[in-house]
């Protein structure tokens, strides 16, 4: 079970609403099943009581919704932020994307969210999903109950959680955690150790599945351009479908580049990809390069940080030195 129950959050939200601190709540809304949870704006206590959920499937990061939501009204909106969400929150503030004064942020601890795709890989026809300690019990329609180790079916980003610490909030429920030395760059390092041919084959296989649905871009809290270059018919690259394998690569390279230095590694891109492409690896490659070339940098850790890509020193390494480093085949 999560330490913080749904009721605690509902009560907190109701309390803030009746006190007039906020007039609406950005929260997770119950779906048809245990796992299909939708981000929603709750404006009455009644709605909160009936439809608010907090369970293993509340992966959605609300930070980006704040841009639209804060433009709607002069009143404050309550937002629940998991530790990783707070980094996106800060990054958006750094970029002046929403008005901090219109938000009341409540930090909530998180034990990691479960990846439904992972569960469904082995189990189809699911009646219900229950949490019990470190296990997840999947009740199926035809094959009885299946017990899974919770740690095995966490979202990738949660398996490699980088921080249980909230870096922004007005109020915190429960105890704050710590920044974690995670193994999140291991996969990047593994790829770097492969030969160029192997890496090419790996990405060719992964990116060839892209259907250009733009879900990665549209969910990304760093992708907040009013008009994306890939939507602009005059850009010459407004490619609605991957008509050639080149275009898949271009889209993903450019997208990762556009968020380089601003990506907080929230992992939403990989979570939502309908084709299961490990897009976070591209972002992490940039993060790990930035760390290595220009010093440790975590986007969103503080408001007002200058992103490394809009910064420089006269002593930076040369592009020629940037390649072929750190185990990459020479």
């Amino acid at each position, binding site marked *: 079970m999560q330490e913080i129950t749904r009721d605690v959050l509902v009560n907190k939200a109701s309390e803030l609403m009746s006190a007039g601190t906020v007039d609406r709540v950005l929260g997770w809304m119950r779906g048809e099943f245990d796992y299909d949870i939708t981000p929603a704006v709750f404006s009455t206590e009644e709605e909160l009581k009936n439809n608010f959920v907090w369970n293993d499937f509340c992966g959605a990061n609300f930070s980006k*919704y704040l841009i639209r939501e804060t433009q709607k009204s002069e009143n404050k909106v309550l937002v629940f932020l998991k530790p990783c969400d707070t980094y996106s929150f800060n990054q958006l503030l750094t970029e002046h994307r929403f008005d901090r004064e219109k938000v009341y942020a409540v930090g909530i601890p998180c034990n990691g969210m479960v990846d439904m795709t992972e569960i469904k890989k082995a189990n189809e026809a699911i009646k219900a999903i229950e949490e019990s300690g470190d296990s997840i019990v999947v009740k199926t329609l035809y094959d009885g109950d299946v017990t899974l180790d919770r740690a095995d079916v966490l979202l990738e980003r949660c398996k490699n959680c980088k921080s249980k610490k909230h870096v922004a909030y007005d109020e915190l429920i429960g105890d704050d955690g710590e920044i974690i030395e995670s193994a999140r760059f291991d996969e990047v390092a593994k790829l770097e150790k492969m030969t160029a041919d192997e890496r090419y084959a790996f990405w060719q296989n992964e990116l060839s599945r892209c*259907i250009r649905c733009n*879900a990665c871009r549209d969910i990304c809290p760093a992708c907040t351009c009013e008009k994306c270059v890939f939507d602009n018919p005059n850009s010459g690259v407004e490619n609605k479908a991957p008509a050639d394998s080149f275009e898949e690569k271009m889209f993903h390279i450019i997208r990762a580049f556009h968020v380089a230095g601003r990506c907080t590694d929230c992992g939403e891109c990989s979570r939502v990809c309908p084709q299961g492409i490990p897009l976070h690896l591209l972002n992490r490659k940039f993060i790990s390069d930035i760390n290595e070339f220009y010093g440790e940098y975590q986007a969103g850790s503080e408001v007002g940080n200058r992103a490394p890509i809009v910064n420089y020193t006269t002593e930076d390494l040369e592009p020629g030195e940037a390649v072929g480093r750190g185990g990459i085949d020479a």
Partner: protein
Amino acid sequence: MRKISLDKLDLLFSEIAKSAKLYLPVDTDNGAKYDVWEDGKKLSDALNTVRSAKDFFFPQTENLMDFKMSGKNIEIIDTRSECEDFVVFGVRACDVKSFEILDRVFLADPVDTFYKNRREHGVIISMACNKPAETCFCKTFGIDASEPCGDIATWKTDDALFLDAKTEKGEKLLSALEKITEAAKDADAEPQKALIKERLARLPLAELETSAFGNGKTNELFNAPEWKDLSESCLGCGTCTFVCPTCQCYDIKDFNTGNGVKRFRCWDSCMYSEFTRMAHGNNRLSQLERFRQRFMHKLVYYPTNNDGLFSCVGCGRCINKCPINMNIVKVMKKLGGKKNG
């Protein structure tokens, strides 16, 4: 009706593959997908493929024609060629139904010859769903997953595969398979059908119904206040449209290759902000309008123009894939009055 024992499936596939390219669902790390059968490829047990079967007839991108330009002159090069025969095995009842829905768009006058070409050269072997999932609601749209259509319908039991030809194309193929299959009585497949029927009736979405939608409901639903809440968190991505077996909106674009121009067609999504952008402006400016368009099209506009046939087949892909878990079931329940509530 014919039957073949399951341990001879490879024989069946190799026999079919002798005369035409055979596609079937195979397992990958990221769910099942249709792949060309070759020796060693195993039929997936998954309920359905991640991407729908519409790709066979309406691929994500296809070249329509080429142009060569020289000075003020233009040469139009018709690049069409006769499609090779192919067979798709293991298509579920919902996806088979989606072909009928696409047919009514692409085969309506004026006929889309790119679509028709592939449609005429493809043979569909459907397969009944032994284990329909919680996200299935094909029954809502009058589809019976225990009696799939297609050119040949099949039922898989614990030890055998039953095959029943449904069309002329199917009969031709099935008769070519006579020497490796054995005769079976219709009654032999009945227990399996009954089992599936019973399972379908017990699905969580079995009660979802359509009486609030369909022909003539446009004005009633168009201004419904519920659209605002429903579309509130929609990201405007194209996931639902691209995994949907019936979404068929497309765009035609030109690509200058440096030695000519290729005009190609690609899937487009009514959820995209630029979808209806024309020289004079954009017809649907808000996400609410775009969101409404998608569901109104499936549940009202399409049936209005097509004798009440809905353009959703209840395959459940959008339920599984939407990044924010908004889907047609939630829309139907919210707009469908008391019955669906």
